[in-house]
């Protein structure tokens, strides 16, 4: 019951989801819709309870033990509180709801706190891509050089500066992207595809079961 039955479930679900792909009949389409758009999503919702608890324990632990910089964990809870207040608080009838709507507006919190933080973190990549390129520049292996040279050519070919240096550059870049680049991408995809399918089949057959955790 503990060990075998979950494997039977994985086998059955895997087989059904695979077979439905080949059946155009409405019954099969409905099965697919119910599974993908309802059941799998509903099941995943319940795991959030565990995840939030895990998040909470992680930070409470730091606060309790007064670990260095524990105040930051308090800030994390404040962040959660703000968002929950803004997201649900404006439903409170009367003045409180109105106050929250005015000063803890969900859209404001999103647009002026969450979104800028997100965009700024994302934009750090501009610096990191430069430092990564520099690192590739220092590495003196054939592979790293090849990577860097291609990167430079492609980068230049996509900005006006490159085209003004040499008119043919954009064409060269287009060729690199269309042929050698595409070739390697295809080669990788084929290998990855075979690996993914083999893993999926092993899951269905119960050979691969580490995702079920221990006993």
């Amino acid at each position: 019951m503990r060990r075998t039955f979950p494997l039977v479930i994985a086998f059955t679900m895997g087989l059904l989801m695979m077979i439905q792909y080949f059946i155009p009949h409405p019954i099969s389409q409905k099965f697919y819709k119910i599974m993908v758009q309802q059941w799998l999503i509903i099941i995943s919702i319940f795991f959030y309870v565990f995840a939030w608890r895990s998040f909470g324990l992680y930070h409470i632990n730091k606060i309790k033990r007064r670990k260095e910089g524990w105040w930051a964990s308090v800030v994390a809870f404040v962040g959660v509180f703000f968002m929950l207040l803004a997201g649900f608080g404006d439903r409170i009838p009367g003045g409180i709801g109105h106050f929250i709507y005015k000063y803890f507006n969900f859209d404001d919190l999103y647009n002026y706190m969450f979104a800028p933080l997100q965009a700024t973190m994302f934009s750090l990549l501009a610096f990191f891509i430069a430092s990564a390129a520099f690192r590739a520049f220092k590495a003196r292996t054939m592979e790293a050089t090849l990577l860097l040279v291609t990167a430079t050519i492609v980068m230049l070919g996509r900005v006006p500066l490159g085209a003004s240096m040499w008119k043919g550059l954009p064409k060269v870049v287009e060729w690199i992207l269309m042929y050698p680049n595409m070739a390697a991408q295809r080669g990788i995809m084929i290998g990855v595809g075979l690996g993914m399918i083999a893993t999926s089949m092993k899951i269905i057959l119960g050979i691969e079961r580490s995702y079920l955790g221990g006993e």
Partner: protein
Amino acid sequence: MLILLIIGLLEPPSYVRAYDRPNDGGGAIVIEWESVSDTLLKGYEIFRRKVGEEEFRKVAYVARGRNSFVNSIGIKDGVKYEYAVRSVGIDGSYSDLSIPAPPVVSYPQWFKKNKINTLLAIAIYFFLLVYFTQAAKGRELFIRRIAGLDHLEEAVGRATEMGKPILYVPGLSGLSDIATIASINILSPVAKKAAEYDTPIIVPNRDPIVTMVAQEVVKEAYTEAGRPDAFKRENVFFLSDSQFAYAAGVDGIMVRERPATNLFIGMFYAESLILAETGNMTGAIQIAGTDAVAQLPFFITACDYTIMGEELYAASAYLSRDPKLVGSIKAQDWGKAILMGLAFIGSILSLLNIDVVLKMFATI
């Protein structure tokens, strides 16, 4: 007008035929006809009636140049329909209705005949997989060196020597991505080694389900290593479900906890370089593994070793040497050999105008 009078009116399309659209769930009928060659032709109007009804009703108009149409609005499965088509002139004139096509019925199918190649491919690959996992029992099969995986143990050892933790990032996707499962397969032996060496392993997560699985896997690894009491649940935790908040948090862990070894294994998106560059700056030894083609260049430049693409799926066999899993690698290689062979033969044949192999790989 004059020309019309001289050469007569527009011809209706000939040879109109209608049939149930194949390989579908019903509710659609395909109508085809021979096109009319007339410079004054603008397009065609398609008419439909239920068998027994007197009058045809217009259901669609298509411009000239097309000579087929899929009618999927208002079709009931199991009802007999008749179709007729007429030509429309650029001046707005009409031809007579064509001779109606024989009655047609739409119905849902139970098998997509056009997908028989996919089904066959699955069957062959499945056979290879089962054959080699069975045949591999009790035999030592060779696997070529995979640098990134070879250095995993060394990386764990280094963290131990330095008395610092190991950071394991299991990717940013959920278990619906097979790459995440592959990552969990690698987490298990890494956590076991860490437990044996008594080195803390930190596993921040983005997906709730993965968090739970990672906790169970690490706990199990500690139990297997005979040190269940050393397992710290708070070291395998849910950090954030937002991509960049997660990246910000992992960056924070890297600069504050100073792990000596960073492992980024699983599915990654744009944040890959944020993680890998920060880790690089802290001086940690870094091993990345992903099948996300777009992120591989960044991991290669910023990490010491990178497990690329399919290597990720060879990992559980490579690390465990479990004959069943190694047999699966053999099946994967056979798959590659067959595909390469077919690409060769297909090219030669297709250049000789024989497209049989090309058709085998059609996905419509």
